[in-house]
């Protein structure tokens, strides 16, 4: 009996103490905390409130009654996720396209970073670097406009090339089969040059003495790339792959919607979760179902990041996210 009382007293004291130190810390650094306040509030409203909005996925959402008044229906909205052939295709497209983007993008970015680091002429480097990073600064809508210049049936650049080498013109916008390849090329065109800068930054951080001593030992350029540059890049590559993998269930909406738009002929290979959800929400007005797909997406993405991070922490601790 006595013992429990002292125990209670102690815990009460501890609580009071920690409360005290909380207020002392706030008072001591009140200006610093004040500085973080706008950011904290903005993130709360625009990132955390939508997370609470996930409740919509478990409701029969009624716009008039709102999130607080709509009836709760449990997992009913999720049921269509299983068995609908459309959803299977959309899921496949999302993962397939993302894997292609991540793999090809990383390979091209890393190769260009290595190439840029090997060049001697500074002027050439600056000019070409400016050129290859330029596409990254265009919005996808502008890219879509450029794509239309290249892929249209009549007068499109690709068809002109096809005609010049003796082939018939192709109506690209009617042929879903080609589009995974096209989308990968467009993605690389848009992002690989800029992506290489991050790797280049890592390469420029490598101690030049390592290269010098390798040269002394007679290592060729190729050997130096394989045995010095690539291993040094490994943590960065893994870190960025990890970040990308977490988003594998998110289609690049900005890109795909801008380029494909409402062209239903291309849906078989280009429709991804995000465009599907967008259509379900805006064109069909199916709020709860779209929310259910969104929840599924966030949840799988979250699990993926956590799992992959755990694996990374085991095998390559320096590249783990947290």
């Amino acid at each position, binding site marked *: 009996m006595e013992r429990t009382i002292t125990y209670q007293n102690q815990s009460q004291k501890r609580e009071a103490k920690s409360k005290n130190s909380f207020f002392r810390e706030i008072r001591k650094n009140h200006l610093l905390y004040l500085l973080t306040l706008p950011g904290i509030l903005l993130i709360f409203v625009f990132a955390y409130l939508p997370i609470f*909005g996930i409740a919509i996925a478990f409701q029969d959402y009624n716009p008039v009654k709102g999130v607080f008044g709509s009836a709760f229906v449990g997992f009913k909205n999720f049921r269509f996720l299983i068995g609908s052939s459309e959803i299977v295709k959309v899921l496949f497209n999302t993962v397939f396209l993302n894997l292609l983007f991540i793999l090809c993008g990383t390979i091209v970015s890393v190769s260009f970073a290595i190439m840029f680091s090997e060049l001697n002429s500074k002027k050439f480097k600056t000019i*070409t670097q400016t050129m290859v990073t330029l596409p990254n600064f265009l919005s996808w809508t*502008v890219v879509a406009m*450029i794509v239309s210049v290249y892929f249209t049936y*009549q007068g499109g650049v690709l068809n002109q090339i096809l005609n010049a080498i003796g082939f018939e013109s192709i109506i690209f916008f009617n042929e879903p089969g080609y589009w995974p390849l096209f989308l990968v090329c467009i993605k690389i065109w848009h992002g690989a040059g800029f992506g290489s800068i991050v790797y280049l930054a890592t390469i420029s*951080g490598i101690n030049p003495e390592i290269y010098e001593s390798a040269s002394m030992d007679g290592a060729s*350029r190729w050997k130096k790339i394989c045995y010095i540059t690539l291993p040094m890049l490994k943590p960065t590559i893994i*870190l960025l792959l990890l970040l990308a993998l977490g988003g594998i269930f998110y289609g690049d909406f900005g890109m795909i919607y801008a380029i494909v738009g409402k062209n239903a002929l291309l849906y078989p290979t280009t429709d991804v979760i995000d465009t599907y959800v967008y259509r379900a*929400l805006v064109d069909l007005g199916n709020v709860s179902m779209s929310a259910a797909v969104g929840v599924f997406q966030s949840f799988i993405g979250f699990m993926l990041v956590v799992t992959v991070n755990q694996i990374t922490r085991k095998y390559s601790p320096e590249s783990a996210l947290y």
Partner: protein
Amino acid sequence: MTIKESIGDRLLLIFMYAAIIVFALACLIPFVSVISSSLSTETALMKYGFSIFPKEFSLEAFRLLFKDSTIYKAYGVTIFITVVGTVLAMLVTCAMAYPLSLRSLKYRNPITFYVFFTMLFHGGLVSTYILITKYLGMKDSIWVLIIPSLINPFNMFLMRNFFKSIDESLAESAKIDGANDIYIMFRIMLPISLPAIATISLFYALAFWNKWFEAMLFISNKDLFPLQYLIKRILENAEFGKQLAASSFIPNYVTPTLTTRMATTVVTIGPIIFLYPFLQKYFVKGLLVGAVKG
């Protein structure tokens, strides 16, 4: 001591130069073809297709584009959200990044996680849409293009890592001299972080300049369309050029639908292309400190 390069090394180097030249040209040529087709006549474009050099030179598309008020309004909206958005975003981002870079701040880690978590888990499109339209009432307001994007966790972390690389004793000595934290941030930390500020500002400016999806979701008032969304609409319906041309009744007039599209694209990318080479030199420096690992 110089070591003579072997033939293999030289061949590899030549291959690298060639690959970079090819990729660089591939990045540049699409711009050239868009600019050249905007300077071409509609009939030439229909007859010969798109090309690197305009076959029949004409400024008709630009004339038509600048006669109408649509493009000016869109420009105004885009410039407003880019300038106001970038300035506000930098303020919010730096104000959060600086305290989180200080080891002396006790609740630094919980706040960092609070920000980081939003990079892992999203509420999704639907709840964001309902929140903004139903509960915040921001539909058809220009602020919907600005306020939700004022803080980007990724940019915040880049900025924080840059502040971290600055010696903490600098702020401490200023504190001993009686400066408060806000003074230290604005008068000491920000001026010495210019490369990082230039880099992150460019990222924000670009995000604001290229904004169209939010406009598509939340804005239906034609006067509030930003440039990029205007382009999206022009791409989706070819009527734009015809609408512009409707005022000029000339016999045998070929409506410049294609060329006005291209002209609008050129007008949209112009400022970015001019601004970009000046800021590009900061990139590697700014990213070097920030991006890789904190």
